[in-house]
């Protein structure tokens, strides 16, 4: 909270785009300074540090195409959540029920496919719709009662997680694991939008031409880009565009920066916040759909603590917990850093007992380094 004023004074948004003028009250600053001042790019320094660390300590296979994909797959799933969480945080609210929503949406999706035998398209549509409604309900409760979103969505964290358990037991007749989804959707044309790899043909071609590594049987080691990565990148770009270039983006910043002032200026704060809650829930549902289709099953623990990781990624990426400041690209890099550190450690020889110590230290170092570089470059105090 102490950082509000501080950020204000160092990161005038988009100084980069300002036309240079001759004003004796302005100093000339280097391009590096201008870039580092963008909240989007603050997290890059940390990413570079982390990459260097792994370059020095990790197995070479981490830096192959296949290695990159093994890191990007989890990072992208987290990232989809992180981008939505970042938007919501910029809008001044939290959603702690994201993780439970992943599990619950997974259940709904699975039940629609298996118990009700719906086609994939209907199941996806209904799952997204349903999650959106739950998200909007969350938002409406927060707005009407003016309770902190922390406590309201926390209640939903428990409720949705509990309902998932009850629902799973009902759907499976007593188990907490719902299986058989792969076979239920085997030949749906929509499948390739939400599961498996994209650009498979291209990668096959690359492999044939010896551009990328192959297994002994001639198949490429990497058969494509996981679709979740495509979603992740697309969402990051879309969210960035919305934040920086649209009316909605302006409203999100305003609603999070000072809801009263925003309301007084005519911003429909309640509508903005409700939409953001719905969006976050939909992002959780999207992740649920992707993971359920990929795994072919769902269980009561899916998405456990993902809300937490999403918030971590958003904060690493420079979002303020108090709202009104942050970026989608930052959350993108935050998710990549988090994914990189947590998967990357498996490529090193550190004993797994030390895993958490490393995870914590790397996160701290990455953020400290971001901060250090930014201050250094922008010449701030």
């Amino acid at each position, binding site marked *: 909270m102490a950082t*509000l*004023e501080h*950020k*204000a*004074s160092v*990161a*005038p*948004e*988009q*100084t980069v*785009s*300002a036309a240079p*003028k001759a*004003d004796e*009250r*302005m100093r000339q600053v280097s391009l590096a300074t201008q870039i580092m001042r963008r909240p989007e790019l603050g997290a890059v320094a940390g990413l570079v540090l982390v990459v260097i660390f792994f370059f020095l300590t990790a197995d070479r296979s981490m830096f192959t195409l296949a290695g990159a994909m093994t890191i990007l797959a989890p990072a992208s799933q987290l990232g989809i959540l992180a981008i939505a969480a970042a938007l919501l945080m910029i809008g001044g609210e939290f959603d702690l029920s994201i993780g439970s929503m992943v599990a619950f949406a997974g259940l709904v999706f699975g039940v629609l496919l298996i118990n009700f035998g719906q086609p994939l398209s209907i199941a996806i549509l209904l799952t997204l719709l349903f999650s959106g409604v739950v998200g909007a309900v969350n938002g409406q409760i927060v707005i009407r009662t003016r309770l902190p979103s922390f406590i309201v969505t926390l209640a939903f964290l428990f409720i949705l997680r509990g309902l998932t358990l009850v629902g799973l037991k009902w759907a499976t007749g007593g188990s907490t694991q719902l299986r058989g989804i792969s076979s239920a959707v085997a030949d749906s044309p929509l499948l390739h939008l939400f599961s498996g790899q994209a650009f498979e043909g291209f990668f096959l071609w690359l492999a044939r031409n010896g551009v990328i590594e192959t297994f002994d049987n001639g198949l490429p080691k990497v058969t494509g880009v996981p679709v979740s990565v495509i979603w992740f990148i697309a969402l990051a770009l879309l969210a960035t*565009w919305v934040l920086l*270039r*649209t*009316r909605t983006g*302006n*409203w999100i*910043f*305003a609603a999070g*920066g*000072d809801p*009263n*002032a*925003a*309301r*007084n*200026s*005519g*911003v*429909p704060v309640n509508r903005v916040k409700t939409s953001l809650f719905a969006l976050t829930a939909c992002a959780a549902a999207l992740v649920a759909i992707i993971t359920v289709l990929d795994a072919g099953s769902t269980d009561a623990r899916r998405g456990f603590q993902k809300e937490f990781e999403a918030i971590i990624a958003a904060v690493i990426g420079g979002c303020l917990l108090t709202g*009104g*400041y942050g970026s989608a690209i930052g959350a993108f890099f935050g998710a990549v850093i988090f994914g990189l550190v947590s998967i990357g450690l498996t490529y090193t020889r550190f004993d797994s007992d030390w895993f958490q110590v490393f995870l914590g230290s790397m996160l701290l170092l990455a953020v400290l380094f971001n901060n250090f570089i930014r201050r250094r470059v922008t010449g701030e105090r």
Partner: protein
Amino acid sequence: MAATAARTPIIEVRDIVKHYGSIIALNGVSIEVSAGEVLCLLGDNGAGKSTLIKMLSGAVRPTSGEFLVEGQPVDFVSPRDALDAGIATVFQDLAMIPLMSITRNFFMGREPVSGFWPFRHIDMKHCNAVTRDEMHKIGIDIRDPNQAVGTLSGGERQCVAIARAVYFGAKVLILDEPTSALGVAQTSMVLKYIHQVQQKGLGVIFITHNVRHAYAVGDRFTVLNRGQTLGTFSKSEISMEEVQNLMAGGKELQTLSADLNGTI
């Protein structure tokens, strides 16, 4: 009282009461503003001027009382309603987001968009240009329209709020102590604006503690005291000294003024 009673006032409130828990902020206040008229709202600190303004602009809802816009009773649930009804306000606390840029604050809530639906976006270049321009008109030469409002000086910030309210025009312009932090040049610009706006046929409600400013632009003067109306006077009925005495709420200004050579 007022000379304009024949026309339907644009805004009229009757017997407005506002309680905050046990605190009574307004206790039966009535005012009215007609088109092309500047109403000055005067009164001591804590008299309830801002509370009244917030009610007119939809930011708070009255505990009881009537509120008519162009003769029709209204019940604003949010400032957006008031804006839609043509009431633009400069709040005393300015209603700015410190972390956002000048341009973004300027257009907040009324962003102009271009392009077709899925690609509808804000033309930031145009917005920046408008902002720089409007600020220049009011007498502020901003360095960069993307500077965060939180890092502007107090007066610069106030100018953004005023320029915004004036730019977006309206039927009624409400200004809550708009000149409190302004420099000499900026202040005269604002007074000039009020004059222009009035000429265009808008109604203006202007709050100030500066008698000279009030007397310079005001047509009528409503004085509040401790949550109640002390009375409404048109310019022809009352002298500057009388206004000043009313504003001070009958405190012994004479003695004070004597010490300081009447410079207040």
